């Protein structure tokens, strides 16, 4: 059919976390520009399975850019060439016939490869567990409208809260820093009145957990912001640093 593309893929294959991986080359023929990137991989995998070969493993679920499960470094860019777009929402019309596409997993010490393109991002969960919440139990809370919040603040908190926890910021950063992700959560609660009582304890606990997980420091290159599919702003990092600094100040 017209407009269909024939592509060469160089894909990172790795059996498990302890076996070394390598690039393997595959042909992806007759690819329609209307396919999403993951649908293109589905087609390749269907062929592999027919040949009784192990399909390329990758994480994905919603395929709507919201669950944060998909990943992939595509030609050196986390989530591929299109800005503000997750891999699952990237369409093949962003590529051309005869292109060679290099596909790798997130690369960071704190995100070990599980298999092929699948990584372990449980470090992100542990950072959230360290303090990413308001300590209220179920029931016994005030009426929702007893906590007025200015629209500007609510909108700003919402912008930080849209982080999908994908980890592209870490993959984009030469230091594998998780600051953009962590600061988005700290900011959401630092902005809202509900977050005030635990404001500093939270910032401290989350930052310490982040360091413990082996993420790198921030040297202000802003690669994270450029690659973040949800356009989380680096101003969140400045806010987090302030929160952490104040937390230390209060303690001393």
């Amino acid at each position: 059919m017209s407009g269909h593309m024939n592509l060469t893929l160089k894909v990172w294959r790795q059996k498990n976390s302890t076996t070394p991986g390598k690039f393997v080359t595959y042909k992806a023929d007759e690819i329609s520009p209307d396919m999403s990137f993951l649908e293109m991989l589905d087609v390749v995998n269907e062929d592999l399975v027919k040949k009784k070969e192990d399909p390329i493993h990758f994480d994905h679920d919603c395929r709507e850019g919201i669950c944060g499960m998909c990943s992939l470094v595509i030609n050196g860019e986390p989530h591929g060439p299109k800005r503000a777009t997750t891999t699952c929402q990237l369409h093949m019309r962003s590529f051309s016939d005869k292109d060679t596409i290099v596909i790798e997993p997130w690369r960071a010490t704190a995100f070990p490869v599980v298999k092929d393109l699948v990584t372990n991002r449980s470090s992100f969960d542990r950072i959230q567990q360290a303090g990413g919440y308001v300590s209220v139990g179920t029931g016994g809370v005030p009426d929702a409208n007893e906590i007025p919040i200015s629209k500007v603040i609510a909108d700003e908190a919402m912008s930080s809260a849209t982080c999908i926890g994908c980890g592209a910021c870490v993959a984009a950063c030469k230091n594998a820093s998780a600051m953009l992700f962590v600061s988005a959560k700290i900011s959401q609660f630092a902005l809202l009145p509900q977050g005030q009582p635990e404001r500093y304890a939270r910032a401290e606990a989350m930052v310490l957990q982040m360091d413990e997980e082996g993420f790198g420091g921030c040297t202000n290159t802003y690669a994270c912001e450029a690659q973040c599919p949800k356009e989380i702003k680096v101003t969140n990092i400045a806010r987090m640093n302030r929160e952490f600094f104040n937390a230390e100040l209060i303690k001393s």
Partner: protein
Amino acid sequence: MKLDAKIPEGPLAEKWNKHKFDLKLVNPANKRKYDVIVVGTGLAGASAAASLAELGYNVKAFCFQDSPRRAHSIAAQGGINAAKNYPNDGDSVYRLFYDTIKGGDYRSREGNVYRLAEVSVNIIDQCVAQGVPFAREYGGLLDNRSFGGAQVSRTFYAKGQTGQQLLLGAYSALNRQIELGKVKMYTRSEMLDVVVVDGKAQGIITRNLITGQVDTHSGHAVLLCTGGYGNVFYLSTNAMGSNVTAAWRAHKKGAYFANPCYTQIHPTCIPVTGDHQSKLTLMSESLRNDGRVWVPKTLELSQKLQKGELKAKDIKEADRDYYLERKYPSFGNLVPRDVASRNAKQVCDEGRGVGKSGLAVYLDFADSIGRLGQPAVAAKYGNLFDMYQQITDENPYEVPMRIYPAVHYTMGGLWVDYNLMTSLPGLYCLGEANFSDHGANRLGASALMQGLADGYFVIPYTVGDYLANIGPAPIDASRPEFAKAKAEVEEKIKTLLSLNGTRTVDEYHRDLGHIMWEYCGMSRTAEGLQKAKGLIADLRNSFWKDVIVVGENEEVNQSLEKAGRVADFIELGELMVDDALNRSESCGGHFREESQTPEGEALRKDDEFAYVAAWEFKGINMPEALHKEELIFENVKLTQRSYK
């Protein structure tokens, strides 16, 4: 077994309060002696796990994704209903109850739906206290929007990401309990069976999706919060991993499955572009406020559009059929979801569809853009228009959108009583996985409400009653039932891996989807359903002989994971068809061609079918047994819906 829904006696508005008082409590000092298993950590599961852990129970929670934050609930866009009446526009608990019962086409329980409406207000308070950033007015108070099926504004939202923000709220409450050591979270773990000892659910069997290890877990009660089964149709708006396995395996162990054929088909989704399509994307139904739905009047013009010889703008006004406006002058493009979907299918079946495949209708904004101006339309729908362009590469400001109905939600699920307990004692079911509150058709913005109502505000009371009754003695995991269930799961995995056939799991899944969509979708006939029965049985036989599952158990093996899920979908498909055959009335989203009014509208048969159809598994290749739970309406009057 006789089905007892255990709806409390007394006036509607007092049932839940009275019931809460009648339920037994567990002594606070004893709570830590009980283990509760929660399978699934979407809205229903995360809220339940966190709330039960807060009370002091030991919770073990499971999900198949790499983090609880990725459950399918994350994808909900539009909003969540609550009877707060903040806009002072006449809302009340009773009105929310009434709208939901009517929206469900009178196929749900009054008692359950009233309770849902009652606790809806607590949900909003809870979420705000957690720091969920709902949309606000300039004065700092919460904003509401309108949604289908209601004349009041009662939907709370967080941009187009309400599900995400609610789930992150529940996830944060769950995280707090994980940190406190009260919840043990197992991610990338798939439940593959329930363990039944002495007629009670006392544990589950799971497979670790990284190592392949099969494990047993014991608990005093098991809660399934495992979401809907829309993916039985292959293509749906659900996430790729959404599946029926947990509910289905529980069904085979004794939990009845209720109303399996009740599926919601959403009218405004982006149409299929080709065989490679893996899922469908929903476009918010709010678009029908300003878009006009049409197809050409003649086959000839449609064919030219399909071949690309003409463009939408070439079709003259006089040659367009705005069929919803024509047939339903008083509701026009705003008829409910089921009516809009069925009519789109009908014009496409006539051959008058548009787009390459002919399986689409136009949703045209030209008039609105002319009337309001492009900036006003962009302000309302900008993000949706962008998403549409991203996927289709067409600019909806210039050419009409193409839309087609898609499977979106499943109202059917495991049968539960008022306490959310299934017919298997000790096994509970919450959220989309149960059948409880939406009848034959779910109103928008009510699934998020139900998931959180079940998890935060119902189960903490009702499970306590069961636990108090059985007592805190530890569950004995050395009972042979545990080892037996584990061995069966391992055997099934081995069989799948040994088949070494010629067709892929996806090929079977796609075939099943085609059969379900064609014969058990929006419009059904006895003849078609009979045919589907045969086709699915053949598919099942072929699957177990000829499917390819590559790799081994002791590794990450997505091929094996999918195979197990599709095997269950095939069996579920057979039951859905049986249920659809049995229900020879048109109701909710389901049009039975044999049951229509002289004008061709859906005809419900209340004297024959005002019941919940709960199916009991009797063994492979055996027909399931039907149990009927009569629906009793003491407060609302059953009327035929009309949108003319």
